[in-house]
Structures are given as C-alpha cells and as structure tokens.
C-alpha cells in the first residue's frame, strides 16, 4: 500500500505520516502542492491519496479534479484532510469525486475510521 500525502505544511505532512504509520501504512511519500503531486501520481503507482485543500500552486480540489479526469488515476481513492469547513466546499468536493473528507483539527481515531471506511467500500 503506497500512499501520497499532499500538504503545504511539512508539520501536517509529518503528523499524517506518523498517524498512517501507526495504522500500519509505512510506505508513504510527500508533496507540498498539487503541481508537485500530480507528476508523482502519474508515474508512481500510488494506491491512496491524502490531500489538503488550501495550498499554493495547485489546490487540493484542483488536484482531485485532475486525478478524476485522468484515465489511469480516476479510480484512485482520495481522502481530503483540510481546514476548509464551508458546506458548499464539502458538497463541491463530493461532486468532484472525493472518497472521504476529514476536517482539521482531527483525531487519530477519525482518520483511522475514514481510511478504513474507504477501503471497506472499495473491496
């Protein structure tokens, strides 16, 4: 299970990386925005994408739309972990095809639950 973590704050990437490791996912890579993440996704055979929304360059929602528009990536499960908490944003993310949405600040238990739920639905 190879996971890409996209967030512009290295601290948040590190927190998510640590939580994922605790959940047994040790094969993770990091990117600081959509522009860095997209080429990695296209060449890297990732099984799961965890992304923030608000980032300089390409935002998380733009990255999600790019992923869904790409024939090789469109089935990639995407979990959004973000401080963006407006209802219409959550609706927009759902319409863009997000698989899960976690608002910051979050707990380890919430992250675990959402990830497990996503994999349950895929299998």
């Amino acid at each position, binding site marked *: 299970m190879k996971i890409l973590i996209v967030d512009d704050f290295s601290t948040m990437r590190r927190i998510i990386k*640590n939580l994922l490791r605790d959940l047994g996912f040790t094969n993770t890579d990091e990117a600081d925005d959509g522009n860095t993440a997209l080429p990695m996704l296209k060449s890297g055979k990732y099984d799961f994408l965890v992304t923030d929304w608000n980032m300089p360059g390409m935002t998380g929602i733009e990255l999600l739309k790019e992923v869904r528009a790409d024939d090789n990536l469109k089935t990639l499960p995407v979990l959004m972990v973000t401080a963006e908490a407006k209802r219409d944003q959550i609706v927009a993310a759902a319409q863009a095809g997000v698989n899960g949405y976690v608002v910051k600040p979050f707990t380890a238990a919430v992250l675990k639950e959402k990830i497990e739920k996503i994999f349950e639905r895929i299998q």
Partner: protein
Amino acid sequence: MSNNNDDEKGLDPEVIEKLRTQAAELVEQVNAGDYARAMGLINELNEVRDQSLYREVGRLTRSLHEAIRNFQIDPRNAEQQEALSKMTDASDRLEYVVQMTSKAANRTMDLVEDTMPKAMALKEQAASLRDDWQRLRRREMEPAEFRELYGRIDNFFVSLTDEADSIYGSLSEILLAQDFQDLTGQVIQKVTGLVKEVEDHLLSLVVMASHVDQITGTVHDLSEAEPAEPDEKAADQGHGPQINAADRSDVVSGQDDVDDLLSSLGF
C-alpha cells in the same frame, strides 16, 4: 482618531464659518452682477474644501505612521532582541510566528518519534517476561530456564530505569518546546493591536470621506458596493480555517457535521 472628535459631528467649525460667509458674499456678488468676483469666490470655496481634505489626510497619515512606529515588542534577552530588531513590519513578525510554531512542532515530533519506540520496546519486554513469569508460577519451568529468566528480569529492571528516565526527559523537553506560545502570543497580540488601530483609522477615513461627500454633494449608489459573487476559481482556492464556526450556518462545526452532510449526499 481620538483627538479629532469633531469628525463625528461634521465639518470643522472654521470651515463651516468660511462656507457661510463666502456663500453669503457669493449671493451678494451674483445679485450685484459681478460674475468674475463670484467665480473667484467659488474657487476660494474649492480651496477651502481641498485644504480641509489635505489636513484630514495628513492627520491620518501621521497617526498611521505613529501606530507603525510604536509597534514594538519587549525582548527578554539579547538573542530575542536581535531576532526582533530585524523585524520591521507585521508580515515579518507573522512569518516569525510561523517559523517558531513550526520549530516547536518539529522539536515535539522529534521527541515523540524518539520516545514511542522506547515505550513500545518496554511494553514488549514486559509482556514477554510476564508470559515466562506465569509459566514459572504454574511450575512449568526448568531450573536452567529459570536462571535465564532471573537474568532477564534483572536486565529489564536496569533498562526500565534508564528508559523511564529518558522518556521522562523527553516529556520535559516537549513541555519546554511549548514556550513558543509566549513569544508568538506577544507578536500576534501586537499585530492584532496594529490591525485594530488601522481598522479604527480606516473608519475615521470613511467618516472623513463622508464629510468630503457632504461638501461635494456626492451620493453613492450603495448597491454597487455589494460583494461580487465569488467565481469558481476563487472557491477552488479555499478559505482557510473558519472562525466562530458554531455561529455560522454555511460552515460545518466539526467532523460529525461533515459526516452528516456527506451521508445526506449518499456517501
């Protein structure tokens, strides 16, 4: 601007006086048929208006300048003084807050990442010893095995003491790493103070502008000032964390709200 309370009431009395006398004179000259003099009076009236505008703008500039100059924070030691003297404006200061909080977060995570395996190793050693101890109590252990267990228990106590010390040390360092809050709190409070002052001054500017409108007789079409509908691009950029989420209906107040919303969408 606390020293300029006339702002609330309207124009400077001096200006009103001039307006009154020159208006009267203007009527007089027009009635007398001296149009050149009347035009001259209109120009003078214009000048009075312009000068009062310049004076107000000058006042605002001065107090804004003052506010920025007074925008200092108290350094506690030479190192902080050096760090702070380099910062000349609010954005630098906020950048400093980002750096401080990031440093503290990383320091904390270093210590946590360092400590977690130690706690895990102790737990595993204890679990393994407990299993063997149970076997001893059930008298299922050979004397040779018991001698080996005896040694392991001894070693465990030694490593338990050492590791507990090291864990305690890491926890105290994590505690100390939170001292950023003091300094960043100070910086943020100062920036908040500046923003508040700028807000007040902007309000004064608006009040002053309304006086100018009064003089020029300008009426604004307020409907034009309505905020434009955010376009899709702007929505994509994100808004950042929402403050007072609980009081707003367009913002979710936590993960439960998100889950409810998503399940209403068929998730």
